[in-house]
């Protein structure tokens, strides 16, 4: 069985004052190899917790996750991760950052150099190979992060708001790049985002999560990612279904946010 299977995942944090937070409750997702899933939801709905559990940084209080048939118990190179920002190693050059995964596996130098060169071509940073990462712009840094993740050839790529800190123009370019890489490499990708538009554009599948307890609220299958692989993303946004879907999801999230605010007011 290939793909990522998440079965009835629950996560409960006990608080020192005796209470607890139900960060996730009975979250089940089945993801086939090569699918791109975006996860959307208001703050505090457990998106990042979910991603950390899948990455293996947190152990769930209950539930099972399997990748290609074996159970996930901890972090592993089969599940690569791209963070929002600041996860590059600033003491290494761009080349060394991208080659980090292969170096950890003691890959022969020539093989490693080949992979790094290829990926730097793919993300368009060949000219910045020997630069220190802190000399690059935010968009370039995220391209390094993508290349670093791909260099390890993981089965699943987990993205935790990788484009969240970028300006609107850079972000649009990066969205195209993510789609291109997805199609070219055929990786399974889980993308967490705050942006409804980004979730619609990139998610072949889209999950909207609801808070307290964190759970799956609604699931969509969307055509836009496929369209976006070959077309300009701005054209995709003009698609007749795009606007209504965006409104629908925005309203959904607005309602959830209002609900949270409302309960807060009651508590006060």
């Amino acid at each position: 069985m290939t793909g990522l299977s998440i079965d009835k995942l629950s996560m409960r944090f006990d608080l020192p004052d005796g209470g607890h937070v139900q960060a996730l409750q009975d979250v089940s997702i089945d993801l086939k190899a090569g699918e791109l899933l975006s996860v959307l939801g208001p703050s505090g709905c457990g998106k990042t917790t979910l991603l950390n559990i899948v990455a293996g940084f947190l152990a769930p209080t209950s539930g099972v996750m399997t990748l290609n048939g074996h159970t996930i118990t901890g972090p592993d190179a089969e599940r690569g991760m791209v963070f929002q920002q600041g996860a590059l190693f600033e003491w290494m050059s761009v080349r060394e950052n991208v080659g980090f995964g292969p170096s950890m596996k003691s890959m022969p130098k020539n093989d490693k150099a080949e992979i790094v060169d290829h990926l730097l071509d793919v993300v368009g940073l060949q000219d910045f190979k020997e630069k220190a990462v802190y000399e690059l712009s935010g968009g370039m840094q995220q391209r390094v992060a993508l290349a670093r993740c791909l260099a390890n050839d993981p089965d699943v790529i987990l993205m935790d708001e990788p484009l969240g800190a970028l300006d609107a123009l850079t972000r649009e370019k990066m969205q195209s790049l993510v789609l291109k890489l997805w199609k070219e490499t055929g990786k399974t990708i889980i993308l967490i985002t705050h942006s409804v538009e980004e979730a619609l554009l990139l998610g072949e599948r889209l999950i909207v999560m609801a808070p307290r307890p964190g759970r799956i609220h609604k699931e969509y299958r969307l055509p836009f990612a496929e369209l976006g692989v070959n077309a300009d993303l701005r054209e995709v946004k003009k698609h007749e279904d795009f606007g209504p879907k965006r409104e629908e999801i925005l309203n959904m999230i607005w309602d959830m946010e209002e609900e949270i605010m409302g309960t807060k007011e009651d508590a006060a």
Partner: protein
Amino acid sequence: MTGIFFLIIYVAIFVGSAFVVTKLLQKGIRDYTSLKTVTFGDESAVTPNRAAGVISILTIFLMWGVFTGSSLLPSFLHAPGPFKGTTNFTYTAQVEGQAPDDAEVTILVHPRSEPAEAPEVAPGDGFAKNDSIAIAQWRTGLVRVDKNDELTKKDGAKVIAINGQKIAPGETVKTADGAVTLSDKGTPNFEPAKGWQMEPLYLPAPEQVWSRSIQILQEGFRNFTLLEHLGFSLFRVVVGFILGAIVGIPLGYAMGLSNWFRGWFDPIVEFMRPVPPLALIPLVIIWAGIGEAGKIILLFLAALWIMAIAARSGVSGVKISKVHAAYSLGASKWQIMRHVIVPNSLPEIFTGARVAMGVCWGTVVAAELVAAEQGAGMMIMTASKFQNTDIVIMGIILIGVIGFGIDMLMRAAEKYLVPWKGKG
């Protein structure tokens, strides 16, 4: 009085040069900052004025020269010096039943470095005879005016006036080149005018410090050459620091990575950190004596806690996303240590090393002040005991220069070895 005069000159140079440089000389400069209208409160608009720095240093030497009568300065720039030469005053002695009699006291004021005999004077008439005395500059002299008189204190002779001005014991009368104070026992005490210069005993002139430095450099001091003295101090600092770092850095890492280590060593480190290393000197002397071992133990202790804390906070400062990224790129624990934690903590460790080197340098000088056979601190302490102020000042300048040099070296090393500092 001299102090106020000094301060006025200093402030005058400060204000005057500020006016001359900024309003007259640098008036035409038009850079980006000069176009800012808001500069008060804009930290980035404040940069050290290079000219001010140069003038500041020159002013220190100028003031030093002015108030020590330095031969490097033309004499019209000197502050008024102490009186030198021959002067005199007249005293009036009285014995009951006799008319008061005047006599003259001739005083030869000579530099301390040129001893002189009291000048010969004619005795004069009356029962009070003329006296003479030689007094060194900045010193005072009791003039036992009655010792050659026909009627002395035993006969009830008393000094009642100086230069015609009435005087009683404890009172002072100014004369042309000094002042006369009558002691409690009625003997005049002459104090030559001191001028506004510092006595060489307190502050030698710059050229004197310079020539003494050359002399010490050539002849050595107390059986060791100057370079040996400084070398011993540096050697102790380097060895103590390296030992402290060798133990402290792994300890800090262990405290940053293990609950048990953190719990075990936290109370020790947190207690020892605020203890000034100087406070350990007595104990270290009791335990290890005043030789090299004691000094190195002291410096080891001075560096140890600083390095341990620097390494600990270096580890704590690793962004969890970097560690997570490394794990999901397939790194083992050891690889994370080697490729993520160590490089990420290096900037903190370098900051700690700079602090530790500074503390060690201060501590070694203090330890040498207390007891040592050789070293920069021992040199100035011994010189101080013999009132060789020039050696003390030379030593202080050298200690400052070396301390500054150490910091510059550490900064250069930091820039070269951890260029990513503050860039994460």
